[in-house]
């Protein structure tokens, strides 16, 4: 079933990102704070930790595809989200071999990943000239609120999805191994 569910959830998350800005109160944006909700990346990290195996790369493919779609439908410049998301999933993939996937590891990895992804986006967009923003302003007005909101969202996702993902993973990959 996960073959159907996972792409569906990802699609839904991408679609919902278009409405996410409306749910952020205007008082926050008027104060000059920028909150970017990386719900797709959160889901991808959870998938990598609890669904994908150490030697499978399904999530990397999901990351490339969903990054590409976000680039096309929400920004002008193709490749930035695609690159950042896939590099970070690749990083989590590497870390997974070293660390045991539990709640604390997941929290730490998510915190680092969201921070690095957002900073990568800032670096690339700054380099191209899409945005002109001082590093200090970026750190205090975008990175900090983004990290806070995304970590709250992460705990929510973790509670909702973790058990299901482990179940789907067992169903899918055990079945495959027994078939061999």
């Amino acid at each position, binding site marked *: 079933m996960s073959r159907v569910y996972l792409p569906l959830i990802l699609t839904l998350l991408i679609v919902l990102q278009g409405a996410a800005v409306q749910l952020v109160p205007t008082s926050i944006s008027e104060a000059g704070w920028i909150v970017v*909700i990386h719900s797709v990346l959160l889901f991808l990290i959870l998938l990598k930790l609890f669904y994908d195996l150490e030697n499978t790369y399904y999530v990397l493919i999901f990351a490339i595809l969903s990054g590409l779609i976000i680039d096309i439908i929400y920004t002008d410049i193709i490749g930035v989200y695609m690159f950042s998301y896939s590099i970070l999933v690749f990083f989590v993939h590497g870390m997974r071999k070293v660390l045991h996937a539990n709640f604390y590891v997941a929290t730490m990895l998510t915190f680092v990943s969201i921070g690095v992804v957002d900073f990568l986006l800032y670096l690339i967009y700054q380099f191209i000239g899409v945005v002109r923003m001082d590093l200090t302003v970026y750190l205090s007005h975008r990175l900090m609120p983004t990290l806070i909101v995304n970590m709250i969202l992460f705990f929510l996702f973790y509670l909702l999805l973790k058990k299901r993902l482990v179940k789907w993973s067992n169903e899918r990959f055990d079945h495959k191994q027994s078939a061999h």
Partner: protein
Amino acid sequence: MSFFRRKRLFTILLALIVLVGLIGFSLTDREQRSTIEEFFQDTFGWMQQIVLTPVNYVSSFFSNIDSMIDMYDENQVLKENLGQYQKILYEVQELRKENQELMNLLDKTESIRDYTPIQATVIARSPEQWFKQVTIDKGKQDGVEKDMAVITAEGMIGKIQSASQFTSTVLLLNGFDRSNRIAVNVNLSEDDEDARGFILGYNEEHDKLLLEFTEYYEEIPEGAPVFSSGLGGVFPHGLEIGVIEELTTDQYGLTQIAYVEPSANVNDLRHVIVIDRDLETSTSADVSEEED
């Protein structure tokens, strides 16, 4: 799949090359989007319309409650205004008739004022807030083209950045830069002639639009309304853009500039109107040459 494991560095380098290539591709000045982009844009636009309708319904419900609180006071003011509108309406009708007659006299049928409105609904907003863009539910099939002006009842909010078959992307006014100039007139009540200038883009520090005048004008009152002049070749004449907030000179003291407060709120958009100018529009390449 073991390919990834053995050649990690190689993979990252390859990803970098792909990134640079794709960015280079999307930064080139393209007249049209590729078919793949249009396909994704339309499919996701369609899904957004389905999924976001309940979301928008809920959020508009709350804003409705908000506005109900002020309803009584607003109603009083509106009733007073209504009496005046009757008089203005009569005047407008007379003027319109007269204008029509004069135009007939001159055998002139088209004017840069005329446009066909295309009603559209905002279906999504970019989560990456550095891109000031929203998606609307009308595309090429409904007659929307690149560079058309987009307005709400309050005034101009932006222009069409790219059009797909069934959806299109709108670049909002606060994302305008020097490549999206608007030729404008500033209405001076005492003078007969309007002050002319260009909107150069959005100034992030002041949170205002930056207007540069082509000539030096002695007296421009603060609060003077700014309209599109239609001479840029893309937008029709007379779209309201905003009011002048502050008047200064540029850093060399040679040209007169002004900060313009946009009259429409670009942060809360539901229903917008795309403006299809009736008169032939020049291509954007011609415009930038003319303006330079």
